[in-house]
């Protein structure tokens, strides 16, 4: 009985501690609560881009009501401009209070964006996003967020496990029989894989395709669960450190100028006051311009503030190039779409107008004098 009472006392103390902790937390979250959506609430905010005196933007932003915007971030280096925009105050200069919302995978983004829970998202060109548009989802491509720069470094690659590299002629189509390839399906990555395979005359049914969580890849390559993975940085360098190497044609040769990632706006920005989207785009293009300066001390400092990565690794990996003017290569997107329809991951093709709204980048470029 005494034993039971002791446990009861311990449980009571634990519950009290939890209760105290909960009270503190709830007070804090109530104090910091922000409005969820952006565009509907903002119509009163003065667009800083339209101000007669551009150098007073920061002061205006401090005195006028800031427009809250939720922007989705995925754990990839190409999201660096958003961090730069926040830390350098480019978004704040435009009267925007940008909250970066971390997510881990592309497929979680579309429901959040289409339902207006977040305002801006970015990710690979994918059948999922195009299907969402085709099915009435209120979202559109609005800007570049990554393309294969023919003069840039290799940001994507097919990485073969080290045991295969010396014994296999990857240009021999028969060598691919039963090859276990890890790739995210129905996205630009699988489209790129198909282009690579087609170039050397390998049929898709020769390979065994899978999609593993990225953290499982090193072990899967080590124990032979997969033979090849198609991935981007920093994984090319990480796998390279384990002896696995890129094979076949470099992405910059095979997929030159291909649009691999884009920024999308959801219903809040597409249907609300267009000046909010334009101001966001001005700040984004300013951030891209700084990002494209490369691995400067300031850019490295900002990135290390936001992402948990070994500084040496961050300096060694390839940073993908982003288009300075933010335009989207729609020819490439439509080619991806043809591939998606042909492969049965899209129901029917869309027109370029249904997919892409260039008005935001056009307005931003005009405001920036590009």
């Amino acid at each position, binding site marked *: 009985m005494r034993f039971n009472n002791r446990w009861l006392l311990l449980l009571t103390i634990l519950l009290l501690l939890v209760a105290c902790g909960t009270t503190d937390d709830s007070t804090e979250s109530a104090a910091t609560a922000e409005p969820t959506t952006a565009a509907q609430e903002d119509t009163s905010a003065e667009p800083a881009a339209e101000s007669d005196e551009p150098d007073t933007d920061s002061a205006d932003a401090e005195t006028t009501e800031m427009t809250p915007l939720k922007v989705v971030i995925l754990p990839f280096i190409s999201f660096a401009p958003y961090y730069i925009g926040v830390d350098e105050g480019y978004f704040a200069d435009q009267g925007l209070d940008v909250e970066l919302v971390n997510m881990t995978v592309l497929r979680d983004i*579309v429901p959040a964006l289409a339902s207006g829970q977040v305002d801006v998202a970015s990710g690979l060109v994918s*059948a999922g*996003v195009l299907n969402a548009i085709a099915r009435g989802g209120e979202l559109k491509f609005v800007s570049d967020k990554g393309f294969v720069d023919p003069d840039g470094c290799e940001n994507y690659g097919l990485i073969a496990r080290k045991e295969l590299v010396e014994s296999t002629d990857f240009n021999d189509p028969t060598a691919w029989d039963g090859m276990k390839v890890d790739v995210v399906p129905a996205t630009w990555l699988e489209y790129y894989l198909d282009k690579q395979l087609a170039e050397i005359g390998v049929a898709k049914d020769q390979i065994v395709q899978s999609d593993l969580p990225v953290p499982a890849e090193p072990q899967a390559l080590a124990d032979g669960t997969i033979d090849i993975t198609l991935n981007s940085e920093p994984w090319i360098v990480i796998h390279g450190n384990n002896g696995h190497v890129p094979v076949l044609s470099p992405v910059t040769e095979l997929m030159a100028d291909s649009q691999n990632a884009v920024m999308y706006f959801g219903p809040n920005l597409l249907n609300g006051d267009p000046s909010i989207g334009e101001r966001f785009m001005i700040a984004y293009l300013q951030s891209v311009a700084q990002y494209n300066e490369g691995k400067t001390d300031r850019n490295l400092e900002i990135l290390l503030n936001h992402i948990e990565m070994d500084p040496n690794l961050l300096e060694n990996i390839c940073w993908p190039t982003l288009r300075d003017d933010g335009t989207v290569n729609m020819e490439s997107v439509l080619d991806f779409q043809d591939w998606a329809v042909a492969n049965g991951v*899209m129901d029917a093709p869309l027109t370029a107008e249904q997919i892409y709204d260039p008005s935001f980048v056009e307005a931003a470029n005009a405001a920036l004098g590009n």
Partner: protein
Amino acid sequence: MTSHWKQFRWERALPAVILLSLLLIWETGSRIGLIKPLLFPAPTMIGRSLLDMAASGDLWLHTRATLLRVLLGLLIGGVPALILGLLMGQSRRLAIVLDPIIAAIHPIPKIAIFPLIMVFLGVGEGSKIFIAAFGAFFPILLSTAAGVRQINPILTQVATNYGANRFKLFTRVVLPGSLPSVLTGVLLALNLTLLLTVAIEIITAKEGLGSIIWFSWQTMRTETMYVSLTVLMILGVLFNGCMHWLTRLLTPWHQRTE
């Protein structure tokens, strides 16, 4: 008698009426645009997708893969759990030693340790079935041990006085006495194993009802996700029905007592 029969039929019909009404509201809402069809496609669209997948054989392929993992997980996790549960129920010492260990391991989120399991068992079937078995283990263990402990000691004493040896005591008293509780544990384990299997399939599998859910989000063809969820609901109802039937069959005395 007639009014009782009528009441019985009405009670039986009520869930179907509620379900059909909800489906009708959903269908209407989706068609007139009150509900976003991107995330909540109309039930008729889901039905069409279900028929297409069934006709192509895809649905059976995925359902079979999930069922196989569930049943293997249940078997691999359930048999040791049953044995250990019977032992713990009978041996107070063993229970004192193992109870704190079980209390510590049981709440571990099985999905959280999946990457670790993959390191040891690879990314193939082994790791998936291990997680399913891990999930099945605890409900059966705890229900079995509890079932043995709640047997009236008088029954054991009477059997011993009549000269029952340990084996007879086990087969005539312990096993039948704990069986209702064991079967409840199996039902809980079945549902938990199904849940864990689908969760793992969402992360990594190429086949299985969870992989349908994952791919439907990947391509934003959400109607196929609802097809998978419908099959999972049917499986849940079937599991429940089968276990109730099995309980009635194996423990008729328990039903009479109730």
